[in-house]
């Protein structure tokens, strides 16, 4: 019944792995950038991502209520412009929010130990979860007419979900998959170019290498850190729209798992490395899909983390991480 090798199944799982992996990679970028600059594991990043998807849901609700889009057509036809707007708006929202969080929660702790910043980040993540719990209630009460704030919410498909490979095909690929690549790849390219060639990008790289030295060379380190949080937040916000659209669910507790996957991806790729985070995200997505198919989903977490441990044993600084030099 389960043929070990079935090319259709394999193809499908590869596609699913890539789609899921792309989203993880986009979130992981936010982790890895912040880590690269101030060595903070930003536990609140996943929850920030959750708030982004809530904003998207609210905006979609508003659009449907104001007659801008027809609720009947959700999933039947594609609303590209709506999706594009949401990616931008939620990105800016998360970026701005991340900036504020940094200002109020982490900035006063810059000189304290890294662990105090870590605990502050954990605290922020709890606060955001509570905001999500209330937010989940309010717009739904106004627009959807129901309580149950804690329950997951359905997110309408913004693009058509007809199978692009034909209705008869075993492999399902819809615009929902395509849109992930269409949004994520340009964002990643833009980020890479930005970090490589702009002045701010160079300042970022300098700060990541050695903050004090960068300051001595005239880099405004505070500005660089602020920019890092803003960009990381923007990517998280963009990812949240893609995630919500792809899985068609948002929930106030979803940030935790997304954050953990992204953190794992960032470390797997070599924390602080942008291509590493992308590679790590894709790898985790693919391994999860393959393990669900060929091993059994109850073993998937064991497979993912065992692989992680194995890779780190042979490459202690991740796949693409720079070898750390011992300080002298």
């Amino acid at each position: 019944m389960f043929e070990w090798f079935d090319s259709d199944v394999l193809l499908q799982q590869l596609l699913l792995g890539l789609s899921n992996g792309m989203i993880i990679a986009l979130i992981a970028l936010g982790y890895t950038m912040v880590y690269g600059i101030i060595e903070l594991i930003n536990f609140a990043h996943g929850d920030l991502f959750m708030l982004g998807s809530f904003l998207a849901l609210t905006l979609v609700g508003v659009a449907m209520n104001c007659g801008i889009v027809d609720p009947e057509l959700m999933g039947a036809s594609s609303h590209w412009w709506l999706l594009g707007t949401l990616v931008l708006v939620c990105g800016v929202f998360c970026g701005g929010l991340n900036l504020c969080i940094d200002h109020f929660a982490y900035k006063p702790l810059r000189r304290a130990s890294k662990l105090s910043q870590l605990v502050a980040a954990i605290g922020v993540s709890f606060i955001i979860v509570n905001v999500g719990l209330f937010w989940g209630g309010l717009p739904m009460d106004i627009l959807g007419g129901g309580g149950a704030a804690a329950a997951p919410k359905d997110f309408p498909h913004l693009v058509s979900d007809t199978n692009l490979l034909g209705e008869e095909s075993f492999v399902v690929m819809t615009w929902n998959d395509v849109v992930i690549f269409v949004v994520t790849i340009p964002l990643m390219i833009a980020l890479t170019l930005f970090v490589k060639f702009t002045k701010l990008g160079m300042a970022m790289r300098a700060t990541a290498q050695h903050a004090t030295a960068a300051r001595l060379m005239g880099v405004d380190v505070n500005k660089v850190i602020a920019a890092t949080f803003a960009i990381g937040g923007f990517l998280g916000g963009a990812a949240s729209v893609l995630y919500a659209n792809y899985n068609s669910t948002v929930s106030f507790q979803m940030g935790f798992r997304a954050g953990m996957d992204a953190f794992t991806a960032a470390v797997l790729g070599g924390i602080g490395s942008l291509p590493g985070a992308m590679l790590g995200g894709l790898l985790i997505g693919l391994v999860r899909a393959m393990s669900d198919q060929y091993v059994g989903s109850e073993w998937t977490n064991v497979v993912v983390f065992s692989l992680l441990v194995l890779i780190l044993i042979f490459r202690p600084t991740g796949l693409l991480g720079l070898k750390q030099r011992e300080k002298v």
Partner: protein
Amino acid sequence: MSQSPSTVHRPAGLLSRGQCILFGALLALPLLELVFDLGISAPTRFVLGFAIVGIGLNVVVGFTGLLHLGIAAFMAIGAYAFAILTCTIYPFQIGFWPGLLAALLIGAVAGAFLGAPTLRLRGDYLAIVTLGFGEIVQDLLKNLELITKGTQGINPLPTPWFFGATFASDTPKSWYFLYLGILLACTMLVRNLEHSRIGRQWFAVREDELAARCMAIRPDRVKLTALAVGAGLAAVGGALLASLISSTGEPGNYDFQISILALCIVIVGGIGSLTGVIVGALVMVGMNSILLPMLGQKLQQAGIGTTTSVYLAPDNYKYLLFGLALVLMMRFKPKGIVAAKEEDH
């Protein structure tokens, strides 16, 4: 560095002054209850269990400087080892104290087992491996049904006995004193280690691994002992908490959130300080299982929160209160409530 002669030759003493005051206060707590009806010595037993886990984690994170995000795995290992060796549905049934000792040893061995392949890793790479180990253990407990009963959890677990006295579920005070005694023993053990040769090696590795290597310290071995001691104590804490509810609970109860709670205990209390860790357990676990429930109850008695609105139910503010407390404590006490003395190390 701790190699200065004054530190080496200073006798450690059994307990520091802060620890004496703290244990005195904890000892007095049930007496206070004779006068005021607080009803807190029963839930405080959980605080004591988590304090032992915190002390263990403090050895790894505080003394040796290794970020550990999977301590819950060792609590689970301790609880399950204790359960399998003592529960009546298994053939071993070795009793409470031998079971606790076994949990300590099995936990320590598991800690070393995790440590061995990861010693090359630095900083946050170690953190993710410990996190991964936590997930793996939890999933193994769920999936290896023949050994662990899977989602069922293992129950009943034996209640402690002490010189002929057995403990029933309706005598929380005697449990309280027993657990306080075990916590005291763990504190003294770790305090002794802290002031011994191995303790100074932990500090040396934390401060500068390269310099430590130059002083003929083998960082690998030092880290391994820290991981083993930390895991062993966490296992004892896990076993005690399981004995308290007479069940290991579902494997899902030992998830990443618990590791995070333990980490918060250490950091909020005061990283590197044993007194601080116990205070941290009082604050964090106390907030979770005493303060927030009590607050909800008082508000209800005052007639608040009995409406159906999501926004008026006090329970819906728990995440916010918990998070805010963490952020504010770090904002105003970044070194924790009881900061470790710098000159010691």
